């Protein structure tokens, strides 16, 4: 029997990063095929190639044995592919039924949109696969888990023969996840091929038929699920059995918190809210899948958004203080939204490097003047000290590479040596060389006695840097681990709400 899809020799490069290095993947009809690997291993790139989002630099794709070249997702959809993205791509203004049928709408004999049959179709699909949802509700008001269900219904409506699911359980509770897997199993039994992208081994072992493991863009293992073990998969994923690096014990384990949150609610109004603190000289990692409440937490801590409960900075209650006050008191913040929040790409690198400090005596001259020479000196100093590669400090920040722009943000925030630093996804979209430098900088901040709060969805990053790891799940802190206990498995379980 011809495989449903066959990818061979897929190579895809982004600048200096080789995201896929001659990858082969065969998808059989009616199987659940898991593609696993750490973040950045190249899983999403591979799937994007299959779904027509990226064109590969080399390699071929066969669909039912015939070579195909998808120039857009529309081509892929027409060829019977469907994808449920990790970041849900729905239209909040439209109803569930409208979202599901969009692009493949049922019409009446007169060519009008057949809304009744759209609703009927969605209800029918929902019932058949046990995915209950109100077909005429607007999507904007649905919780994340339900939105993903809508995405799935969308693919089912198009009768996708190959269904790609990118980290589908990252926004689901364990019970919801179990239901999803039951649905996937039914689909596979009726001949649909399912590609399950994940880094959670539990799911893989429970649900898949076969597994392909990726590491650094290459295939490092192909297994039949029934004949493999978690240990074998981990070895293929990580290459060695990683032990966390030995860490210097904290010098003042009972020092008062430099940053403390008590009862800060991150969403649900009935929640008691999160409570934790960060001491000087330690890195506290916050692990969690994206969308677990990181953004409201950071906004509450930095003053960029509303805060409930109490936020204390160096013992002072700053719950209702503005951003400027907190920065002045000693808070630095490296946001994950580089182009929108952390920088103004149109401004020069120098002007980006002084944001927040423009009113300090060093930079602010008489009559409110900005000391041009001091700005230039500051920029030159940071450029050398942090190894930011740029033609000059006068060029717009937008001309810098992602890694160098990120180093600029870190330079600005860390050079102030504030008592407290909040770092959010510091190595997102950054190449490997820059990643190491950035990790070294964060570690150095700890050595300097700064209190560092590190939010990251990269487990390896959290494990490499943090002294303590807190796990955020659905807006609540569900677990705390000391560095040594923070194994991939333990964190993974907690991040999906499985932990006790």
């Amino acid at each position, binding site marked *: 029997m011809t495989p449903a899809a066959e990818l061979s020799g897929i190579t895809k490069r982004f600048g200096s990063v080789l995201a896929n290095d001659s990858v082969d993947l065969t998808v059989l009809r009616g199987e659940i095929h898991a593609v696993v690997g750490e973040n950045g291993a190249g899983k999403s790139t591979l799937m994007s190639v299959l779904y027509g989002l990226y064109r590969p630099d080399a390699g071929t794709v066969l669909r039912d044995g015939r070579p195909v070249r998808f120039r857009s997702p*529309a081509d892929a959809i027409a060829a019977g592919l469907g994808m449920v993205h990790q970041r849900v791509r*729905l239209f909040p*203004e439209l109803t569930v039924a*409208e979202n599901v049928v*969009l*692009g493949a709408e049922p019409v009446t004999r007169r*060519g009008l949109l057949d809304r009744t049959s759209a609703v009927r179709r969605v209800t029918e699909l929902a019932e058949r696969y046990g995915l209950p949802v109100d077909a005429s509700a607007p999507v904007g008001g649905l919780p994340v888990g339900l939105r993903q269900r809508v995405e799935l219904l969308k693919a089912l409506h198009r009768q996708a023969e190959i269904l790609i699911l990118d980290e589908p359980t990252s926004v689901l509770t364990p019970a919801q996840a179990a239901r999803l897997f039951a649905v996937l199993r039914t689909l596979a039994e009726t001949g649909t091929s399912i590609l399950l992208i994940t880094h959670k081994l539990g799911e893989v072992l429970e649900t898949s038929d076969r597994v392909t493991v990726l590491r650094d863009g290459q295939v490092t293992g192909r297994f039949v699920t029934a004949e493999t073990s978690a240990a074998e998969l981990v070895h293929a994923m990580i290459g060695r059995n990683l032990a966390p690096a030995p860490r210097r014990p904290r010098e003042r384990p009972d020092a008062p918190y430099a940053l403390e949150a008590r009862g800060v609610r991150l969403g649900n109004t009935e929640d008691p809210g999160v409570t934790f603190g960060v001491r000087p000289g330690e890195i506290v990692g916050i692990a969690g899948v994206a969308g677990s409440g990181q953004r409201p937490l950071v906004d509450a801590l930095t003053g960029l958004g509303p805060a409930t409960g109490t936020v204390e900075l160096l013992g002072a209650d700053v719950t209702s203080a503005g951003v400027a006050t907190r920065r002045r008191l000693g808070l630095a913040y490296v946001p994950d939204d580089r182009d929108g929040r952390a920088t103004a790409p149109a401004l020069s690198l120098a002007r980006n490097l002084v944001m927040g400090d423009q009113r300090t005596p060093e930079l602010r001259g008489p009559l409110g003047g900005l000391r041009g020479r001091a700005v230039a000196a500051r920029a030159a100093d940071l450029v050398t000290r942090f190894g930011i590669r740029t033609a000059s400090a006068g060029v717009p920040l937008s001309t810098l590479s992602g890694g160098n722009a990120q180093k600029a943000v870190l330079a600005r925030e860390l050079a102030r040596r504030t008592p407290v630093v909040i770092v959010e996804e510091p190595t997102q979209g950054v190449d490997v060389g820059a990643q190491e430098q950035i990790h070294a900088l964060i570690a150095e901040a700890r050595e300097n006695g700064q209190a560092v709060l590190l939010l990251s969805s990269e487990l390896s990053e959290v494990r490499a840097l943090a002294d303590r790891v807190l796990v955020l799940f659905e807006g609540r802190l569900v677990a705390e681990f000391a560095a040594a206990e923070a194994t991939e498995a333990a964190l993974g379980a907690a991040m999906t709400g499985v932990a006790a």
Partner: protein
Amino acid sequence: MNLVFAGSVITATAPVLFAALGGLLCAAAGVFNIALEGQLLCGAFTAVVVGHETGSAWLGVLAAVVATVLFAALLSVPAVSLGTEPIVVAVGTNLLALGLTSFLMRRILGLGGTYSSPDLRGLPDLPYTSQSALVPVAFLLTAAVAFWLRRTRSGLRLRALGGEPEAARSLGLKVTGYRHAAVLTAGALCGLGGAQLSLGNVTLFSEGMSAGRGWVAVVAVMLAGTSPYRLLGACLLFGVAEALGFRLQGAGLPQQAADAAPYLITLAVLVVARVISTRRRKERTV
């Protein structure tokens, strides 16, 4: 008496409603179109010139539509295809429309200020009313747009791509095609609105006669979201304000107060509507 007032409300509403419908289509497609003011003027002028030259008001209307669609292309090509900031382009085309109509008025009609002539025939009134035949078209088009947005494939797709163009693109929808269509259709509607203004509401052309109606249409769109019926409400409100101003002017209020009234009332309603909606949003989050 009340019937007369209602009639003047409807007359005042029609041109704004045409323009606002165009603005609504653009908003649904994700283009912030503030070029309506200049396009109304373009339509009003073309209608009078062609109406005058051919002696047929309907040919004037047709020419207004064609000319304004072409004029709207001046916005749609840079803003949709090149990604130029639509606001800046629209500021330019609004000024261009004002200059070009005044310039050509002097060259073609031979004078500045206000042009009217017994040779210039306005649109025929509907029987038993003092409304031109274009007026019901505005109201029928409102219903048509509402129906189209809700009940057709292309309407649904247009509503979808406004908010999430990337997601729409990934479904294979032709985002730029829809946007061009929306901006050009807005041009056609402004052509109709302009023609109604110069050959329906009155039978003359005067410089800058759109007098801010295109901006009122922009506000109406902001108030209405993508609901054509709410849009109709917002435009009727403007119509009432204008008719009221007219009436009060007859009763001895200075003309300036009458000129200002529609804008002040539009602004006041917008403020009240926004305050209410922000309050509601706050209540929901707390």
